[in-house]
Every structure is written in structure tokens, then in C-alpha cells.
């Protein structure tokens, strides 16, 4: 019954599912206008780094190139590296050397790993820029969630109390917010299909979702 709505909150990176928010726009502008050869895009898991990379690749294909190990690197394009914490030291060194030749390299990685790499003397001594992906604020998250429900024709099954509670547990993290909503909607779908007492996203359904996700 709620399949379409549930699919909206799947853990996928879908450029068509673009939602503009303040921090996203700031980060985008910083990346586009950056003159440094080394850019570190840092943020917690689920903060939107991968989405940002895919967005830039999609919107500016002439300017950006995604890093693939065996692919040739095109001149004049910025190299975007996602999950850079998975690279070994040798690969990181090669990329650093590449940046010295004038190629702009963007490392997208988790905050802690990124901070550790920056502390190494070969990176620390060079010109680099740190950009942080910050979480959504409550108003932005509420706008995002309600928009999804309205788009799929179910605005009545969510209310402000529920969004506040979800925000309280997700703290504005995109992935976690989607995960909670995905789980809660699955439970609600089960209740509706089996004609149980739950007709909308209420405290009970949310509690059950949080228990299932071990957040409570």
C-alpha cells in the first residue's frame, strides 16, 4: 500500500531526488570556487558526501571526473575520490604527487580519517582546503520529509511531533533519517495491510522502528 512512499526513503543515491538545503549550497560553492589542488570533503557517514560527488559529476561533467583506478585522468578536470579512507598509503601518495602537477584532487572521506591524513607532513605542508558536510537543521529536515509524503499523496500520516522525534534521534543525518522513516513506514504498511489499529505514523510505530534499529 505504501510501496512508493517507502521507496522514497531507500538508502540509494539518486540525483533526481535532489533536495537543496543551506549547507549543501555552501559546500557546492566552496568546491566550485576552490583554487587549491588538494580538497578534503569531510563529514560523518550519511552526511551527503557521495551525493555531492554524484551531483557535481552530473551537473558539471566537463569539470569533474570520478576516480577509477585503471582509468585515464583527463586534463583540466578535477578528480573526485569517494570513500578515500579505503585507499592505501601508496595510492594516496600517488594522488598527492599528481596534485603537485596541477591536477585538482578532491578526497571525500570520514572526518576522523581525513584529519589523520591531513596531519601527515607531506599533506600538511601543502596548500589544501577542508570542507565539512554539516547535518540538516530541523526545518530543513521537516521540509524534506513532508515534501516526500505530499508527493506520494500521504500528507496526513505524518505530523510535526513525529518529525521532531525523528530529528531528535537522527540529529539531521540524512541517511539515518531515511532509515528511520523507511523502517517506520514498513511497519505502518504491515499494519494497514493486516487491518490492525495503527493508521498513521504515531508514537507507537515510531517507538517500534527505533527499537528495531536499536536506537532505543
Amino acid at each position, binding site marked *: 500500500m505504501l510501496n512508493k512512499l517507502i521507496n522514497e526513503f531507500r538508502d540509494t543515491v539518486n540525483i533526481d531526488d535532489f533536495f537543496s538545503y543551506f549547507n549543501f549550497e555552501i559546500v557546492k560553492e566552496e568546491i566550485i570556487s576552490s583554487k587549491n589542488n588538494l580538497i578534503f570533503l569531510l563529514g560523518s557517514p550519511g552526511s551527503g558526501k557521495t551525493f555531492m560527488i554524484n551531483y557535481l559529476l552530473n551537473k558539471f561533467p566537463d569539470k569533474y571526473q570520478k576516480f577509477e583506478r585503471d582509468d585515464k585522468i583527463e586534463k583540466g578536470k578535477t578528480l573526485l575520490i569517494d570513500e578515500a579512507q579505503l585507499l592505501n598509503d601508496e595510492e594516496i601518495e600517488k594522488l598527492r604527487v599528481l596534485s603537485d602537477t596541477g591536477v585538482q584532487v578532491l578526497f571525500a572521506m570520514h572526518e576522523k580519517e581525513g584529519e589523520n591524513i591531513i596531519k601527515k607532513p607531506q599533506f600538511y605542508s601543502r596548500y589544501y582546503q577542508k570542507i565539512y558536510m554539516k547535518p540538516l537543521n530541523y526545518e530543513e529536515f521537516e521540509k524534506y520529509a513532508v515534501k516526500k509524503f505530499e508527493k506520494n499523496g500521504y500528507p496526513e500520516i505524518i505530523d510535526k511531533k513525529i518529525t521532531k522525534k525523528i530529528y531528535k534521534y537522527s540529529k539531521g543525518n540524512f541517511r539515518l533519517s531515511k532509515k528511520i522513516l523507511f523502517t517506520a513506514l514498513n*511497519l505502518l504498511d*504491515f*499494519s494497514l495491510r493486516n487491518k490492525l489499529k495503527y493508521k498513521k505514523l504515531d508514537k*507507537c510505530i515510531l*517507538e*517500534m522502528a527505533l*527499537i*528495531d534499529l536499536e536506537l532505543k
Partner: protein
Amino acid sequence: MTFYELENICKKRKRKIRIILLFVFVLLMILLYFGWKAVLLEENKQSKKTIKKTVNKIKKKEIKRKQKIQKPQNTKLLPLIDLELNERIKRTVKIKKEKSVKTKKEKTNTKQKDILQSSNIPSFKTCINLAKKYFEMQDYKNALKWAKLANIQNKKNPASWILSAKALYKQGKKEEALKLLKIYNTYYNNNEIKKLIKEINEN
């Protein structure tokens, strides 16, 4: 976990929270109740103290008033001889002085004390009986004299006062007689004295 398992867990948690809230609420009520009682007890104690103080104040005031009313200048009833009535009384005192020449050397304030100390005065009964006999014989001077001697022996007994007053009245000293009786009346309530005062006033 299945839907139903999750639902059960959720319900159990809610029940726990409600029990805890109820427990906290009951605790608060108990604390409030005992706190309120303690406050009341303190208020009662304070009010009792203030009431006691006011009652004591009132009592003291009343006592002071009574003392003002009751206390004459002399706190003790003086014997008849010490009361200054007329010259004749003084003369009788002088006669008694001659008898008790020996005791003049002692420091005494009044001549009456010399008489009091002498052992020559007969008992109250004999003095009163003599005074009565003289009164019946219409010898009012001697009646007065023996009434005073009886009074020395026992100043509280109203008989000596009554006879003295009667004797004075018969001698034509109405005011002095009344004065005597009133003095006695301020110290002791006696119906005979009151009657006599009335009779003298009515003549």
C-alpha cells in the same frame, strides 16, 4: 524482529514508564502531606505561645489593678491604738506610758509597742467581756479603753472594732466610729461591720 514482537516490547516499556511516574507522583504527594503537617504544627506552636503571652499579660494587668484597688497606704491592719482618732486616745496612751517606764530606753517607734510587749494586758476574752460590761453600764470611756486592749490582743477579731465604734458613737463621735469600721471593712469582709455602718449612717 516481527511486528508483534516489536509491539509487545513497546507496550512493556510504556507500562514501566507509567508505573515509575505513578510511583514518583505518590512519593511527591506523601512528601507534600508531611511537609504541610509540619508547617501546621509549627504554626500551632507559635499561636499557642502568643496566646499564653497575651493571657499572662492580661493576668498581670488584672493583678496590678487589684493591687491598686486593694492596697491601702498601710499594707497591714493596724491596731486601734495606732490609728489617730482623737486626743483622748493619746491621753490613754500616756497613762500607759507611766507604767512601762523601764522600756523607754529601748529604741521603739511607738508607745503602743511598749504596751504590746507588756504582759499585764489580760486575754482577749476578758478584755472584750469587760468592754461589754462597761458598755452596758453606759461607761463608754472604759468600754472604749477595754475594747482597744482587746484589739491589741487580737486585731483581726471584729468584736473589738464593733465595740469601739459603738462606744465612740455613744460619745457623739459618729465620723470616727464610721472611719474605724470602714478601715476594718477594707481589709476584711464582715457582715456585722457592714450592718453597723448602715445603722450608724441611718442613725
